[in-house]
């Protein structure tokens, strides 16, 4: 009876998964660039970020078209409006991965071995993004809530990185600039965690109609 609309919603879901996967890849590449010091990887993050921007535009216009054509209500309306909010957070994630990559190009090949927890932050945020998009597609509130809870772990790692860097600056003041660059990188990962949390909150809205801040 509404097979065309369902088909359009499925296409939207596929595109959301693709955009989520692009974000995961951007974070993973930035993290790899950091551990290997490979500047060429940093350049690919920048390209990927541009692709993510384009994906945001595509999904945005698909959502506008659905709003116009189908005049959705109830869960359909929530699913589409949640998608519109989520892609803004995903686009920011792409930008932040790019910001991380840009800092890496200033590190002159140093690979942040002193701060393993930055890598942990990267790993955590990747799984947060994967799970939040997964939760959206599967309408899984439990998974969305798990993502939100996971953000504490990222914040914990961030605090550990901070302590380590304070120590580094105290012990070897000549590493001050390097330490600040690493702090920026860690902060970007921490922000990525916040965006993944936002995505998960929109998933909960999409399923239940309740948003945390309303």
């Amino acid at each position, binding site marked *: *009876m*509404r097979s065309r*609309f369902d088909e359009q919603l499925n296409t939207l879901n596929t595109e959301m998964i693709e955009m989520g996967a692009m974000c995961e890849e951007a974070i993973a590449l930035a993290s790899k660039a950091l551990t290997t010091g490979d500047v060429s990887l940093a350049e690919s993050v920048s390209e990927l970020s541009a692709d993510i921007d384009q994906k945001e535009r595509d999904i945005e216009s698909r959502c506008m078209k659905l709003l116009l054509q189908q*005049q*959705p*209500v*109830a*869960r*359909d*309306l*929530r699913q589409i409006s949640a998608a519109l909010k989520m892609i803004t957070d995903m686009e920011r994630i792409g930008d932040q991965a790019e910001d991380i990559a840009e800092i890496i190009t200033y590190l002159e090949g140093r690979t942040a071995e002193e701060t393993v927890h930055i890598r942990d932050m990267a790993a955590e945020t990747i799984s947060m993004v994967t799970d939040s998009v997964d939760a959206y597609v599967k309408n899984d509130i439990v998974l969305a809530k798990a993502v939100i809870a996971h953000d504490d772990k990222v914040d914990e790692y961030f605090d550990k990185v901070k302590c380590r860097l304070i120590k580094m600056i105290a012990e070897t003041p000549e590493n001050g600039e390097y330490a600040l660059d690493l702090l920026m990188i860690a902060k970007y990962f921490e922000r990525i965690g916040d965006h993944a949390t936002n995505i998960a909150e929109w998933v909960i809205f999409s399923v*239940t*109609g309740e948003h945390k801040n309303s």
Partner: protein
Amino acid sequence: MSDIMTAKNLNLWYGETHALKNVNITIPEKSITAFIGPSGCGKSTFLKTLNRMNDLIPSVKITGEVCYNGQNIYDNSVDVNELRREIGMVFQKPNPFPMSIYDNIAYGPRTHGIKSKVKLDEIVEQSLRDAAIWDEVKDRLKKNALGMSGGQQQRLCIARALAVKPKILLMDEPTSALDPISTSRIEELAIELKKCYTIVIVTHNMQQAVRISDNTAFFLLGELIEYGETEKLFSQPTDKRTEDYITGRFG
């Protein structure tokens, strides 16, 4: 906002067919309440119980109460003509009387005993103004109403209903026979009218319910399934049947 009408355990049968099943609803005054649901769900039948239009159908049996201003309108003591003066109705198809625009409006007041020309002129003008059609017809009040466009005829019917100074206006799919521009005029008019009147509208156009109503009631197979604030009902319906109907999964 206080309540103007309440149905309590209302049941209605057309012969053997149980068309309304234990409907309980409270309608707040000076607001727009929309009834939605698939064809045959009982929404129009229920609308007609609110001013006893179903009395005209011989096989109808009704149990339960419909209270208006605290009184059960199915009480023997109720004067049905007086009830229908206070609770007017506008139908799906515009049904002006085959007489002049002026006489269409003056018809109701005249049957209620108003004879003064000055008074009637005043009522005709005010009713036509309230129905947002005065400017279009003021120069041809003596012309036959059947010469008007469909949208104008429908606003004339609204003006005619307003002429007897009702409290409630029941509208049974008032725009389903109209073009989009006439439809939006009637919608704007309904929003304007709710400042002074209570409006209950049956509509097949769900977007119309979203656009103009404060509360929406969803009927299915003679039952009132869900009733609440329109915005809530269309964004977070609580009953799965409501969700399935409004998202086009059946109906």
